């Protein structure tokens, strides 16, 4: 582990005390970091937070959802009568209606 780790911004984190060091040449910690860099120091690369990684994975799974892709394609080309027929054929109770509405909203949000 290096003494420092980069972030998604120009702030550098000192790993010994988790101090957030701004990119200001008058900041004493930055002066120390710049000298460390000049002496050959190499900071650890930025690591995305796990929450963002999890979200990215879910988004990829959503994009790859065949059912969703199929529904999106059918919605794009369907007439109002065809949508009515689809709803009549697939929705028989409130739970299914709620699920279908959520699905349609998700698809529309992603368009």
């Amino acid at each position: 582990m290096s003494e420092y780790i980069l972030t998604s911004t120009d702030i550098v984190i000192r790993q010994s005390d988790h101090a957030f060091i701004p990119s200001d040449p008058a900041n004493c910690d930055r002066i120390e970091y710049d000298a460390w860099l000049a002496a050959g120091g190499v900071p650890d690369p930025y690591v995305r937070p796990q929450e963002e990684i999890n979200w990215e994975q879910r988004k990829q799974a959503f994009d790859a959802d065949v059912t969703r892709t199929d529904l999106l394609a059918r919605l794009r080309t369907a007439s109002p009568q065809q949508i009515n027929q689809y709803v009549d054929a697939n929705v028989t109770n409130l739970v299914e209606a709620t699920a279908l509405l959520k699905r349609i909203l998700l698809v529309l949000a992603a368009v």
Partner: protein
Amino acid sequence: MFLSPASRALIGTRSLREFPWLQRAMNWTSSQMAQGRANIDLLKKNYIINGAMMVSQQNGTTAGTTTNYYPVDQFHMLISNGGAISAAQVASVTPSGSPNRLRVTVTTADAAVAAGDYSVIEVHLEGLTVADLMFGTSSAKTIVIQFGVRAPAGTYCIVVGNSPFNRSYVAEYSIAGGEANVDVVKSVVIPGDTTGTWLTTTGIGIGIRFGLMAGSSLQQAAGSWGTGAVVGSANQFNFMGTINNVFELFDVSLTEGTVAPAFMVPDYPSQLTLCQRYWYSLLGPTAGMYIETYGGAGTFNALAFNHPVPMRTAPTGAIIGTFTYGNCGSIAINSTSATGASINVTGSGAVSRLYAFANASSGVSMDARML
């Protein structure tokens, strides 16, 4: 000429022209001027911030043992030797009436001073603060450093230097046998340096070192300007030589001239504000700092705030203590500037509302000090 009510009462209704001495420049000596100022409670500017040692934002009265430790604001330790010390703000009334002083205690003795050994209390004054002393010019002003001290008998040193400490002046003072371990007031006079580079910016304008131990490679003869990054002269007493030695520093002032006025304890709020230009923290009870935003997944700027006062430079931020998180796993300081800072939260996306609140005695600190 503006006259105080007391002076007007003295003169009565007579014309000022009948008192030519009131309007004539006086050729007083420095001592006479100092006495004159003292007579009417008029004091010169003290360039030292927190010279009364009352402000200790970061560490309170907790003792520290490491180099760069701040027992009180503005005063930090520089230590490298085989012994050990503890340094802390203590509640002990000083001769001027301050309730606090800085106390250094030897916890492990080091009687054999190696060439590179040192132990120092150091203060850095910002260039903007001391610009009018005009160091590095032909108009450099003489300064006097006055302080209260309680220490074992011996010869001690004070060093004044510039930012890289390639200009330095060693001044000595003595604690006589009869003054050992009792409160005494000492002062040293230092002629302004007419050469060298002395910053008048937000960098270190003047550095001051109160010596406790000085190895031979860190020594310079007292009484003249030199070029060494030193901590004392060859006469510096080895304060580290005996366990339980105590050195107390209090009522510190740096004023222009050759005679220091009596130390005046400054008002606490003003000193706290001055200290916050260099370091402050936002701590409090549970949920004293509350951060909330909506966004679900991703990283969002959730809180932006201004510093209590503009800081010397963009500060280094630190998260202190622990936070309680709701639908997010962490917070991070997104940006800092001399005037403010912002904090990010990173959410997982399961729930839109993201929040984090500081637990008791937790929050953030901002550090723009001149180490």
